[in-house]
């Protein structure tokens, strides 16, 4: 039996790309970190389907307790790379938080987040939401429906607390964008005061994703913005109602990236390309044949060493549906997009959007010229490595030439107004003009001094 298994293993090993001939790897034993969220799927799939092994990489995947521990792990070198929030490499490179030059050659997915509020807040919001033909709340729900609820809570002396996962996380910016689009002040950061609650009507603070349902249940927060499966988990537990997904906020917005230190990719260029190749293959598999492999992906993710939540909870969003109120299930086919719409290409315009949001809320204290945004984006996002890996995959016959944007200059076409909840289009090439077009937020040369905006 062992001999037969050995022969079978040998044939699978030889059938994959002959690693010895193609790339000489500088380092082949790697440790990657991740947080228990559905969108770590490309890492789990690359391991379980043997894509890492095909490239000659021996990868250990380690769940991290929270985003801070994960970031510190990458900076200290205990983790060679990690599943990261798109804002983390950018914030670390510009020196917000621990300073370190972190880069990314691979965007892990699009969309995948939701904003959930507690049952009590939902009941108070419902009268303000128009209903559609079938009597269900009309989507997308604007935060304007939440504004009267917040005013009522504040009149009663209860601060309206909401949770997000990290000061530079996509969820923080998406929650703020949604609140601002409804006319609610989400608060500013200043150099002295980094709580992000200056002048805020809704007070946002940090909670690690797996602990969010528990914190909502305990009443410490009245709502949160987080990635899946923690929105559906709230519905399953009967403690909250998701009001909007980030797909409805901004269609096909960038979400997570795979981050490595700049030193690592300098010292291990071939290893970086091998990692990117394996991850691209995993992303292709996840979106293959109209999401045919998603069921298997759900089974992998529900294992305790990956995400560990119940398969039913993970399956909802992974298979294209999303449950809002209990029983109100709607089709959201691109909720988790791993490869379609060029999801894995690290676009500079994505980096610039996050930088504009950091500037909008005061994390970047002073105004910067458009060229600065472009420079930072180019130093953190590495599409050249991505394209090199993609080229090798196409030559090996594992990917389709047509799937990759070979000729892109790194900037997506400007987002049409219809794709965004408040109708304000975004063009990555003109970040300052974009900032000026947003009603709530720092514009031009404004800075936050003490507890007010000056300039």
């Amino acid at each position, binding site marked *: 039996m*062992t001999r037969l298994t*050995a022969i079978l293993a040998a044939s699978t090993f030889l059938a994959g790309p002959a690693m010895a001939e193609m790339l000489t790897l500088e380092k082949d034993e790697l440790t990657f970190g991740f947080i*228990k969220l559905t969108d770590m799927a490309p890492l789990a799939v690359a391991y379980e389907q043997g894509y890492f092994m095909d490239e000659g990489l021996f990868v250990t995947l380690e*769940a991290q*307790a929270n985003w801070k521990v994960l970031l510190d792990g990458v900076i200290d*070198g205990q983790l060679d790379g990690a599943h990261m929030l798109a804002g983390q490499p950018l914030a670390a490179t510009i020196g917000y938080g621990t300073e370190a030059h972190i880069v990314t050659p691979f965007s892990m997915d699009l969309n995948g987040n939701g904003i959930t509020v507690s049952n009590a807040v939902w009941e108070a919001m419902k009268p303000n939401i128009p209903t559609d033909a079938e009597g269900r709340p009309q989507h997308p729900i604007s935060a304007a429906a939440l504004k009267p609820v917040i005013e009522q809570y504040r009149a009663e002396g209860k601060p309206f607390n909401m949770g997000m996962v990290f000061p530079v996380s996509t969820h923080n910016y998406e929650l703020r964008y949604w609140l601002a689009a409804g006319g609610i002040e989400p608060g500013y950061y200043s150099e002295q005061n980094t709580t992000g609650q200056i002048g805020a009507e809704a007070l946002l603070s940090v909670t690690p994703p797996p*602990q969010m349902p528990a914190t909502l249940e305990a009443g410490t927060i009245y709502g949160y913005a987080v990635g899946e499966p923690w929105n559906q988990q709230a519905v399953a537990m*009967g403690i909250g109602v998701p009001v909007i997904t980030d797909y409805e906020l901004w269609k096909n917005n960038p979400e997570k990236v795979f981050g490595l230190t700049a030193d690592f990719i300098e010292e291990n260029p071939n290893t970086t390309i091998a990692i990117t190749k394996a991850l691209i293959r995993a992303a292709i598999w996840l979106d293959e044949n109209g999401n045919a492999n998603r069921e298997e992906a759900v089974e992998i993710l529900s294992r305790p060493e990956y995400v560990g939540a119940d398969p039913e909870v993970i399956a909802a969003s992974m298979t294209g549906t999303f449950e809002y109120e209990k029983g109100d299930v709607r089709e959201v086919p691109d909720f988790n997009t791993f490869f379609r719409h060029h999801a894995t290409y690290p676009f500079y315009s994505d980096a610039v959007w996050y930088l504009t949001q950091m500037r909008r809320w005061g994390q970047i204290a002073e105004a910067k010229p458009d060229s600065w945004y472009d420079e930072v984006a180019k130093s953190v996002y590495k599409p050249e490595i991505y394209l090199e890996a993609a080229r090798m995959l196409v030559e090996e016959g594992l990917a389709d030439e047509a799937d990759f944007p070979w000729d892109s200059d790194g900037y997506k076409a400007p987002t049409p107004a219809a794709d965004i909840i408040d109708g304000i289009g975004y063009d990555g090439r003109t970040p300052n003009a974009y900032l000026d077009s947003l009603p709530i937020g720092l514009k031009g040369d404004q800075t936050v001094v003490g507890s007010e905006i000056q300039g």
Partner: protein
Amino acid sequence: MTAVDPTAIEAGHKEARRARWFARLGVADRWFQVLGLAWLTPLIKAAAGDNPRAQMRDVWRLLGVPLLAIAGFLALWAALAPQVQTSLGAIPGPGQVWTEAVGLHEDAVRTAEKKARFEEQVALRNERLVEQGRADEVKEIAFTGSPSYYDQIGTSIMTVFFGFLVASAVAIPLGIMAGLSATANAALNPLIQIFKPVSPLAWLPIVTMVVSAVSAAEGGLFAKSFLVSAITVTLCSLWPTLINTALGVAQVDRDLVNVSKVLKMSPRAKITKLVLPSALPLIFTGLRLSLGVGWMVLIAAEMLAQNPGLGKFVWDEFQNGSSSSLARIIVAVLTIGIIGFLLDRVMFALQSLFTYAPNR
């Protein structure tokens, strides 16, 4: 022609054999008690026909009553558990816990298969490298998958023993010193009284920072989380051994001490031939207590230091929040209890081997 009845001789032999048999049974009984199988002795005696009614009463007390109590507890659990609803579902009853335990075993079997396949692939890789003349790149690669439940149990046991042995190595010499010399006792006593009540969770941050600063950046013989957990176990479990050793040494019979003075025994001989054997019962009591405390502390330390053992298993299941999490946590709780019981039995057996008092 003898006047002796042959059957009487037979009966005599039989009686002698029976007497020898019961003598052996008496010796074996000591071992049965150590192993928790005390009920075997009266059962065997009853089978051999030695006052069956009295023996059956003993069997009832030693075996029947405990079994009935366990069955009663399981019945109560099965009845009450579904009535408590939490956000993760109802508290699991014995049936669900058993299902999860079986599930964990099956996962462990699958992990073993994955590990075997992984090792074959590594072996193949090494062979190919040698064929290509790159023999210097051959290396052994540790399995990259997550540990199975049995691996985690093994890690916990190794960590607790490492911490316990270090604690004993520190506590026994210090205890002997404190017991032999009143000055040393006065010096050590205030320190012991202050540090004894400190909880392991208070030691943990300090130990983590010290281990991070002192240990090499990568590699090293032990993983950082292993060292942090083991040292926390040491700091908390050294006190029972220390105090009991000091007490045991101080209580050595005055007459024996006088004998050592008369014989002009060197300190080394005095300690090894006189003090240690007399103090051994109390030293072992201290060791047993230390191991018990260490096992309890280990679970908390592992949860926080993320050492891949049972503590981390419980913490991860809690974070996962799936519908089977509560049942798995209960499986872990029962495992922790059973292993704690077995560790205590092992210490008890060792104690019986090394001490001579009849009732310990």
